[in-house]
């Protein structure tokens, strides 16, 4: 496949395209999303394809404050506000909490699916003692809008599956229909119906997927 065909017109992306898109996404995030720590690229060492590097994006130890009663959604948005107010450098593992609140930590990985030719979001939650959170507990941390989306939609649902590289159970957001809504995004984003440039592929993808797990991206990233 030639480089011009990196983002295939039908909303899918090649492995090479994913690597480029991932770097671009991580750069933009770092520049425009200061309320969060940056994503890191994790190369797959034992599978480096000669000159082509393979890997996935990782964002870890994101803290969501969850009160034991009441809705969690406001709390989760508050976390990001706290970060940007602090002048000192952010220690991502440190948490501000009062005695009623319980801290939940989340790790997110964006991994390429060679079968479906789209990115997939894997995530997991755990408490401060490292104990994994069940899906019921995790759902309470999600914005209430996405919980209803998950329940009603055929497209987005969460399953527990083995992480493709880490031999551990993670949760995965199902990719069904990804290429369809990416196609819709690319059609609506420009009048001449051009496809999304590869550098913006993951940004566009995440603008939808991130919302399901309560991670919003600033508009500046979409330019």
């Amino acid at each position, binding site marked *: 496949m030639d480089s011009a065909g990196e983002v295939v017109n039908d909303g899918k992306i090649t492995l090479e395209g994913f690597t480029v898109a991932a770097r671009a996404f991580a750069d933009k995030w770092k520049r425009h999303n200061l309320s969060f720590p940056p994503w890191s690229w994790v190369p797959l060492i034992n599978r480096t394809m000669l000159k082509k590097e393979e890997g996935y994006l990782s964002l870890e130890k994101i803290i969501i404050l969850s009160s034991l009663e009441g809705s969690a959604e406001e709390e989760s948005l508050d976390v990001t506000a706290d970060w940007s107010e602090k002048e000192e450098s952010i220690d991502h593992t440190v948490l501000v909490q009062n005695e009623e609140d319980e801290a939940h930590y989340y790790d997110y990985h964006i991994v390429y699916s060679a*079968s479906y030719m789209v990115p997939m979001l894997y995530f997991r939650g755990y408490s401060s003692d490292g104990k994994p959170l069940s899906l019921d507990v995790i759902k309470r941390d999600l914005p209430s809008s996405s919980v209803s989306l998950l329940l009603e939609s055929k497209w987005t649902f969460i399953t527990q599956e083995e992480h493709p590289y880490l031999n551990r159970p993670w949760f995965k957001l199902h990719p069904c229909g990804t290429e369809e809504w990416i196609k819709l995004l690319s059609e609506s984003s420009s009048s001449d119906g051009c496809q999304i440039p590869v550098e913006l592929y993951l940004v566009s993808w995440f603008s939808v997927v991130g919302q399901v797990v309560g991670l919003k991206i600033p508009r500046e990233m979409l330019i």
Partner: protein
Amino acid sequence: MAANEEAVKYVWEGAIPLQIHLHKSEVASHPAPPPALVLAPRIGYLPLLVSLIKPYFKDSLPPGEDSIWFDYKGVPLKWYIPTGVLFDLLCAEPERPWNLTIHFRGYPSNVLIPCEGEDSAKWNFVNSLKEAAYIINGNCKNVMNMSQSDQEDLWTSVMNGDLDAYTRLLPKLKMGNIEDKFSRKADLSSPKSRQGGTEIDVTEQVVKTARIPVRLYVRSVNKDFENLEDVPEIDTWDEISYLNRPVEFLREKGKCYFTLRDAIESLLPEYSGDRAQTSGEEEADGSQETRGEIKLVRIQGIELKLDIPFSWVVNNLMNPEFYLHISVLVIGPQR
């Protein structure tokens, strides 16, 4: 090359004799129960054997609820991998019977995804089938459009190892024809391509890249060995690289000499014979890496010669969910 009926029957009838021991921490009776002897279908899954095994041990179990899992020499077994693949991968020197330990308590949920018996095995099968369909056809409509009862029947035929029932149900699945991907040109007049190909664009078949569902399990050892029994035992799954990636190749008109070696090397280019040309990069200290070596390739328990046409391998040795599972033992690149 088209699927050979006899070969497919051979695959479906393949089975592994298992000797299942109850984990000693769960033996609550005296004397301890003897191990259960079970013949496990290669294309089946461990959770499907529980109803056969449990009667041997139910009187020996401590009180409480069951959460069943298996281990081989301390390594928890991934229940969603077909039994034959687990055996080919974890036993360099085939062990007959294969000694496994069953646990009814203490499910290692930090390493194994949960398993609720047959339902989980079925869910895993249907999901894999959808993924394979997506790879072959470009969408999974054929699986989604199958009626619930047909899907049930398909799964039941796999559970029971009933090849006849499975073969009768296949036309309802409308899976794209894999044979056509290897053939010289799309044959419009053949009934086979019409049956599978109503939704497939003909030009796509002739021109584009063909994709074949493959799951590759690579076990890497550090030192060369004379005999398989010298291969060290496996300690954790971290020693195995799992690659769930389709084999892609450009269909060239009039030719298809794509071999099993070509297929594996496309997924593991670091073991490719051409590596000498491209790996001119030297290490910082001036030494060069010697390339690794593929020692053994096993599919359905058969050690295959790498020159066999890939089309034959796929058509005859794939699993019922349309995935070809390949176990590879390699000597890793040495520095």
